[in-house]
């Protein structure tokens, strides 16, 4: 099922309609220090109108809700019209506003509650996990802040490229209205729905007939979560060790330099070889910084598994409610039958008391029958309603799941490819350095 069919405003000639979005506002100097966001996206109405990026991060201090001074980071969201700039013309200045991480969280919670059948994109991690280098685990560390900036931008772009989520007004106001947005969100009353929904999601209940597709999906999601967590842990350890290997070579640099001082013929060769060893040792920093980007791509899908899991749970919840309603209806029908035929198969207080205190009058019996009849009617309505809810949810959710699967396969394949490219780049650097070193050794 192609997503494009469901959003009639999207006219795609080519099914391969993906484009690689880059941070076009960065100058070349900036882009050297900042990570390029190469997320693959689909075009929606929203993205056809505006470009979105999270351009900067800044530290602020202020009093929080309990009047304590705190330091936090705010991120600059820029939006600008998507029309291409004419030759020689200057691009329009972007609209921009500042948001902090907690506001992103609020937005996401709103989306979770409002669109329970959609897999909501995850936010970048709150605290740095799976780190190989203890230093960058600090929330205020510039590298962590930078990667979070990219992650937040990624989040916004994912929402903006979702056929349904991109049409949400609150989301649009998040991008464009700095003040007043918070009130607007709270006014939607999603908080009330949030509490009950979230509570029931964590409740334990047994579903008799869950849809097999959702059961399979939940299992897949758990497997993916386990294996990606493991992969991230392995990666962190490998990175740590590789760092050690490269840095130790720096000692060659130092020793060769000292040694060259006492040699005549060998001196020059040793000295210059030593410099290359220093270069080799220094090169690992950039290599691992790049690899962090790969880890972030994996982390995004790790966090996605939580969203997938919650969809499965929602299905179970609705299915459970349906089953409960059906069970309740059956119980009432049984009661009615017994009342009509006079047999007591189901224990009821009324039945017991009539046995003990004598049969009830015809009047009482008839009023009870009427009440039951009413109750059964309501019960039938309820079952119908729940059934509809269940069907609608499954259909809507499954559509999004298919979309998600396609996105996941594409994104992760891209991630693997970019990992390979990183490895190739690392190998090329290694070849360069050691070839140079060999030349120097030749001069010994």
């Amino acid at each position, binding site marked *: 099922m192609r997503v494009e069919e469901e959003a009639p405003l999207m006219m795609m000639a080519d099914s391969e309609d993906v484009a690689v979005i880059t941070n076009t506002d960065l100058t070349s100097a900036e882009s050297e220090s900042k990570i390029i966001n190469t997320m693959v996206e689909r075009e929606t109405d929203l993205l056809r109108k505006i470009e979105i990026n999270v351009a900067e991060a800044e530290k602020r201090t202020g009093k929080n809700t309990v009047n304590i001074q705190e330091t936090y980071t705010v991120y600059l969201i820029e939006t600008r019209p998507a029309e291409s700039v004419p030759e020689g013309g200057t691009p329009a200045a972007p609209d921009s506003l500042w948001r902090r991480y907690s506001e992103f969280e609020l937005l996401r919670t709103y989306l979770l509650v409002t669109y329970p059948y959609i897999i909501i994109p995850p936010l970048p991690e709150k605290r740095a996990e799976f780190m190989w280098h203890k230093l960058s685990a600090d929330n205020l560390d510039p590298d962590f802040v930078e990667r979070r900036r990219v992650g937040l931008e990624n989040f916004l772009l994912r929402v903006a490229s979702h056929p349904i989520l991109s049409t949400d007004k609150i989301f649009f106001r998040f991008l464009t209205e700095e003040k007043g947005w918070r009130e607007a969100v709270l006014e939607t009353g999603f908080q009330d729905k949030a509490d009950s929904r979230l509570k029931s999601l964590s409740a334990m209940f047994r579903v008799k007939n869950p849809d097999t597709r959702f059961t399979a999906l939940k299992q897949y999601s758990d497997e993916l979560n386990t294996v990606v967590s493991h992969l991230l842990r392995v990666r962190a350890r490998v990175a740590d060790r590789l760092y050690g290997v490269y840095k130790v070579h720096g*000692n*060659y640099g130092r020793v060769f330099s000292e040694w060259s001082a006492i040699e005549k013929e060998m001196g020059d060769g040793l000295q210059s070889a030593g410099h290359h060893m220093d270069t080799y040792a220094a090169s690992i920093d950039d290599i691992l910084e790049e690899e962090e980007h790969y880890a972030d791509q994996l982390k995004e899908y790790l966090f996605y598994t939580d969203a997938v899991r919650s969809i499965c749970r929602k299905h179970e919840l609705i299915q459970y409610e349906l089953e409960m309603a059906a069970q309740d209806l059956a119980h009432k029908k049984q009661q009615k039958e017994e009342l009509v035929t006079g047999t007591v198969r189901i224990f009821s207080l009324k039945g017991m008391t009539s046995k003990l205190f004598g049969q009830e009058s015809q009047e009482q019996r008839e009023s009870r029958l009427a009440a039951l009849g009413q109750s059964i009617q309501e019960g039938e309505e309820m079952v119908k309603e729940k059934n509809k809810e269940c069907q609608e949810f499954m259909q809507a959710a499954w559509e999004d799941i298919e979309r998600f699967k396609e996105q996941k396969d594409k994104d992760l394949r891209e991630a693997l490819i970019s990992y390979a490219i990183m490895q190739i780049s690392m190998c090329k650097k290694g070849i360069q350095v050691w070839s140079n070193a060999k030349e120097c*050794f030749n001069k010994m």
Partner: protein
Amino acid sequence: MSGQTVSADFSGHMLDLEEDEDLEVFSKNTSLADGSPVPNSPSSMINQYRLEEDTAEQQNGNTKDIFITVDDPESHVTAIETFIVYRVLTKTTRSEFDTSEYEVRRRYQDFLWLRSRLEESHPTLIIHPLPEKFVMRGMVERFNEDFIQTRRKALQRFLNKISEHPILSYCQSFKVFLTAQELTSHKKQGAGFLSRMGETMRAVANSVRGLRSRPAEFILMQEYVEAFGNKISSVDRVTQRIIREQREYLDELKQYSPTYTQWAGSEEELAEPLKSVASCVERCSKETEERIHHLSDVLLPVLHEYVLCAESLKAVMKRRDNIQAEFEVKNEALASKKVDQEALQEEVDGLADRVEQANNALKGDWSHWQNSMRTDLKSAFISTAEKNVEYYEKCLAVWESFLLSQKVEPSDDRNSGDVS
């Protein structure tokens, strides 16, 4: 001559004509201590020529006329001990040897004997070190496969170094070592325990007294030897550390492949690229293993040998100092006028000659050693650099083949253009 008490005539001890036929090439001075002219045999002239030549020439197969291999380690068990015996195979065209091929069996102790004999005969020549008696690091036991192989290679290198040395390779003890089926009878001959003891005691006495003045070039040499010893030990330590880090890296790297494979098991579309990545990482792991082996087998042994060389150089310098000190002691005694002038003068003259010979021998051998050191270390470093280039080239090929399998052009700039 074992059991001989220390005589005043050191010249007889030094120029041990019964033992060493090579004394005509001991120094450029063509007269022996007793005044008779040195027979200028063709071989001695060639060897003197060799001293002046660039040692690199000697590595050339054209001038090499003796080839030695050490192999086939075998365990020997007796009532008292167990030890390893190696086969030493010699192929040579030299006229001093009766036939062109010899095969003998030798144990580590025999190598020790050879080296100490060479040291005795030529106290100020730089003799290549033997692998250590015990290996402390890594808790390697004596009969461990790797240990035996490492030792075997080092023993072979030792014999080849001796065979390349212009003077040492013509030592009688060397020939005996390579050719005699039974060494025990030869071991009983030669300057024995007591004379060695005497030398050591004299050395201690002299070192307490101190040298009057060391010639400038030997002061420089001493400084160099100290510094060189330091630096080469550092390089050795750094290399050991690198090997350790590489091993730990490899251990972690090996976790990648099974994890990617496990992931592939849960996927449909992604299964193929994931399995491909798993196999790529596995191949890179193998290359890493190769890289580690190369460091351990090629670079580290050479570095370690030169660490031992530095130690033996210090010993050579000390012996030279002792020879000078012995002369100085007697020379000073000469000035006191209380002793038999004539006899003492003869002794002093003899000692003076000895000092000159010792100095010349060392000076001559010094450049030979430096060239040898430079060649050995240069070749080991080049080999290591080459291996590292090869490692990265192979890994590069692995990942490029992955990209091809995913139908991506390896040279694509990922930051622009469409994904096909």
